[in-house]
């Protein structure tokens, strides 16, 4: 890891470790869940060049699965999170096999349509309780000993999951696998002619991204003790695109910064209803027209370092 990224990582970890002294911890936990979600999404678009417009299906599926496991089956939290993540991974495998058959714009439309199908499934199936969602999910005892209803225990758990997920994406991006992905993004025919099985790489990237998004969703369900349709809706898929775009596509720290900015904005704008949607739309337009490198991308460009 280059020096400037080490510094940035240390700053980020320190910020999230110390921030709860000044900021409402539930808000920070939400920010970390979305940051992990955005990192997972960025793995796919930033390094694989695949724009998924249906990532909410993984967030929501893992959330429902974890919530159901914890509430109805009485799973311990670590198993509930693992179960939710595994369900998202399975969904990633199935939808990935379908979606990677098309590229570019068609890939985006296909993932959007698939996630809409999943949305309707959850809307109708009884175990999700429709519009109410799965409420009052018990946080339970981590490993049977740590009571997660204590906000600090929960905070540390989320912090550990987030940092572990972040480091995992970092490792993937900088592995030979990540390099091949970048090669495919830059020039797919060339990668094929070099003998790489492009579809297998894409599927694996998609699967990894789905799994990490699932980890974020499962954790989020335990934090808020709720799994609802909001997390599967297409607007959630749009939101993660926005976070990543705003932070900087293909940067290491961009998704985290983007998630933090968007969540903060929503927090303050929530009182004035539809203005959240409008301001999100405006940010999209500005980012695409004038600010394509995103916050962290611009910062990195200014410092002449890759962040």
């Amino acid at each position, binding site marked *: 890891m280059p020096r400037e990224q080490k510094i940035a990582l240390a700053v980020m970890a320190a910020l999230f470790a110390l921030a709860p002294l000044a900021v409402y911890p539930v808000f920070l936990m939400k920010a970390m869940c979305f940051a992990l979600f955005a990192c997972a999404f960025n793995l796919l678009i930033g390094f694989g060049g695949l724009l998924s417009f249906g990532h909410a299906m993984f967030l929501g599926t893992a959330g429902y699965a974890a919530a159901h496991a914890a509430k109805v089956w009485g799973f311990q939290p670590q198993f509930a999170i693992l179960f939710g993540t595994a369900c998202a991974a399975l969904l990633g495998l199935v939808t990935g096999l379908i979606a990677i058959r*098309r590229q570019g714009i068609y890939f985006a*439309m296909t993932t*959007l349509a698939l996630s809409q199908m999943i949305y309707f499934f959850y809307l109708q199936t009884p175990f999700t309780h429709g519009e109410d969602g799965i409420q009052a999910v018990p946080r339970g005892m981590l490993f049977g000993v740590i009571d997660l209803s204590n906000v600090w225990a929960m905070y540390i758990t989320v912090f550990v999951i987030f940092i572990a997920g972040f480091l995992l994406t970092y490792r993937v991006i900088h592995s030979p696998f990540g390099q091949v992905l970048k090669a495919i993004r830059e020039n797919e025919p060339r990668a094929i002619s070099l003998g790489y099985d492009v579809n297998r790489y894409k599927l694996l990237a998609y699967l990894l991204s789905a799994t990490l998004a699932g980890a974020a969703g499962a954790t989020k369900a335990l934090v808020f003790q709720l799994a609802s349709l909001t997390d599967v809706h297409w607007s959630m898929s749009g939101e993660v695109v926005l976070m990543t775009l705003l932070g900087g596509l293909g940067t290491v720290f961009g998704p985290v910064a983007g998630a933090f900015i968007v969540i903060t904005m929503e927090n303050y704008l929530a009182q004035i209803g539809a*203005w959240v949607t409008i301001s999100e*739309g405006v940010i999209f337009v500005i980012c695409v*027209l004038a600010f394509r490198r995103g916050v962290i991308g611009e910062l990195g460009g200014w410092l002449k370092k890759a962040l």
Partner: protein
Amino acid sequence: MTEIFGVPTQALFGQLLIGLINGSFYALLSLGLAVIFGLLNIINFTHGAQYMMGAFVAYLLTAKLGLGYWWSLAIVPLIVGATGIVIERLMLSKLYKLDHLYGLLLTFGLALIIQGLFRNEYGTSGLPYSMPEALSGGHNLGFMFLPNYRAWVIVASLIVCGATWFIIEKTKLGSYLRAATENPALVQAFGINVPRMITLTYGFGVALAAFAGVMAAPIYQVSPQMGADLIIVVFAVVVIGGMGSILGSILTGFSLGVVEGLTKVFYPEASNTVIFVIMAIVLMIKPAGLFGAQK
């Protein structure tokens, strides 16, 4: 009462009719998307919002100026198409050299803005829009009751789709358009103003969406969200048909509407998802879509 496969014919034909109506809108909207994509290489995510604008402008023309349905049908596509031209000139035209995905993101953002603005102004509940006098009532065909307005929607959308097909495939203007889709630089070299053609094409695609919106206003309630979910279904329709062929878009739109209607009769639980399931199957068997060519 007569039955087919254990289903009363009344219900069967009723759902078939609804399917054809929905299919009309799928066809009109996916046709607009295909026309825009052909020349601009952009998937117009704003399409659903522009369809909604069509319905709203029609509603406002009636409420504020007292102009009826027929006036709206003529004027609204021009008004909304003009806003499309402004969007193309100010924003989309800056993106043609970039990855196509940026076009998708920009139009998604625009859709959020437009839908949010209308929601702020008019709330989420639907507004009623009355049917034109001349088309109220209906005919009893013996096996079913056919409301006149619904018959009109199907006929009108068939005519508009057919006319679009004719313009693009059979006229000189259309041949310029198809040539510019293949090789814009060469067409420009022949002295044809390609940027203006691109602008007008976008305006035309948007006008088609607005036309669909006006026609939808008396059937569905006019509400800010009316286009949001519809556009996702239309995306699936486009993936199934492939955007390579105008006729393909029209045919896919209508037949998927009918399939959806039939699903409502035989297995209602799946009626929301059937189009997406078909999309998944088509992608597995023929990834380029039914009428598409794999690039």
